[in-house]
């Protein structure tokens, strides 16, 4: 375990070192992330300037929801988004060399940090602080503790979903961009309150792909915001960590089953 951790830390350092070869990249990436989020926020703001609320959520509350998603996603993506490359690695037959090395294949796949996600994380933190003030949430120990649990739990949920979708490559080989499609699904759906969606879709995002626990329920709890129309009450936001633990446990079992089943595609 210690050896594996040492390998992972060293691998992360190497990828950061490689990234430092492009000194302008940090500035460009940061501006990039700002522009991307600004484009989305302008759309939401334009919409709410006409309608004033969405599912009972005002623009400041939506900004908080949006920021919370960005922070959680940025944190997870920094460590876990290299998993999206797994289907193409398996398809090319390059996964064989991961199996031959005396280190966990999973650690090798996620060994390269996704620096672009760090930009999203930083921008998200800035927006979260700004929106925290806008919605007047008190800076209490309880609220900060819930926020911390949300960050950890949401990271586990996102990592688990990514791991399961990437593992499908062991069975299907060509997964048709399944990891990316789930990423876009999450990116498009959870920036809006869950209670605007039809019930079957809410059921999927609460009980099957628990994206609702990433930002909607925690935000609803912190903001004392309505979840009218959603499956669960705002108190569900306190259970993000247990949901994350369950998800990651299932994901690791699927990953191990996939590894046992793996047959090379050749090269």
């Amino acid at each position: 375990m210690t050896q594996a951790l040492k390998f992972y830390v060293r691998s992360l350092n190497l990828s950061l070192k490689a990234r430092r070869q492009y000194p302008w990249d940090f500035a460009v990436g940061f501006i990039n992330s700002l522009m991307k989020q600004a484009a989305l926020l302008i759309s939401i703001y334009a919409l709410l300037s006409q309608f004033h609320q969405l599912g009972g959520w005002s623009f400041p509350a939506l900004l908080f929801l949006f920021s919370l998603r960005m922070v959680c996603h940025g944190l997870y993506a920094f460590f876990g988004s290299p998993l999206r490359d797994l289907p193409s690695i398996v398809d090319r037959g390059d996964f064989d060399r991961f199996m031959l090395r005396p280190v966990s294949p999973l650690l090798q796949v996620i060994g390269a940090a996704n620096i672009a996600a760090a930009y999203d994380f930083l921008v998200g933190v800035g927006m979260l602080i700004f929106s925290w003030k806008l919605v007047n949430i008190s800076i209490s120990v309880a609220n900060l503790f819930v926020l911390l649990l949300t960050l950890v739990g949401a990271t586990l949920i996102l990592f688990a979903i990514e791991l399961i979708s990437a593992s499908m490559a062991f069975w299907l080989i060509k997964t048709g961009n399944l990891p990316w499609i789930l990423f876009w699904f999450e990116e498009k759906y959870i920036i809006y309150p869950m209670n605007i969606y039809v019930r079957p879709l809410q059921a999927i995002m609460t009980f099957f792909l628990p994206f609702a626990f990433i930002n909607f329920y925690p935000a609803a709890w912190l903001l004392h915001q309505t979840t009218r129309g959603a499956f669960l009450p705002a108190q569900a936001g306190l259970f993000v960590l247990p949901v994350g633990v369950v998800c990651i446990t299932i994901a690791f079992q699927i990953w191990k089953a996939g590894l046992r089943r793996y047959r090379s595609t050749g090269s």
Partner: protein
Amino acid sequence: MWKNISGNAKIGLSLFLMYRMQVVMVVFDEGINFLVPICLWFGLYRGNPGLIVNGMNLQDLFTYTFLTLILDVISRTELTWILRRGIRSGDLAIEFLCPCPVPVSLISSDVGIVMVEIPSLLFIVLIATPFLRPVAPASVWSFVGFIFSAIMAMILKRIIAILLGTIAFWTLEGGGLIMSASLIIDVLSGGLLPLAFYPHAFRDVLSVLPFQGLVNLPIEIYLGKVQGNQMWLSLLGQGVWTLVFVGIAALVWRTATKRFVVQGG
């Protein structure tokens, strides 16, 4: 030349159809794109379905969503990423050996993949129509104008995709920039939200830019929001922008390929 183009299109189609899961995922992707805006409009108009906002009622928005998806399917392209991968790996060098200009070769291969989107298109039409009940075009001329505009949107989207892909000639790490640019174009084209919802001043600026020709303009023509002489002028403007972008893309391509160096094999 035509044999090369059609040959490439067939190869692109065959490669895509090799794995059924890939085709299934394309259909699943359409479902995702279809449901988000529908739920959004329901959420916004809940309790007030007769509301009209800047000339758009709920039925107009459903039709807008329906047509956005159709335009998205026919304009969809992987050219940016194919080009970027080819440049980074050096495989693009092989394309230069073909007796066909590289951008033409790439576009023709892309056209083959568009053909496989036809099941997705049928899925949208079959599943979405009973729910959305899109309105018929405002007139015959509106429909004709929509078709012309949609064809130009297809071409313009691919030219923009190639332009974005050429970023990789100058920087090794342009992936994030490409994704951001794509999202911004999505906003400016009305792909994310109809331009009618933006503030007046912002709309005026967007109306002279080429991006509204990708989504908002064809749909406004279909709905009859832009008709008569205004429609023909808008189509002319869209055509001019398309030609301008073809010129820009040709210039950028010529400049970029001069500095293209492949090290080893």
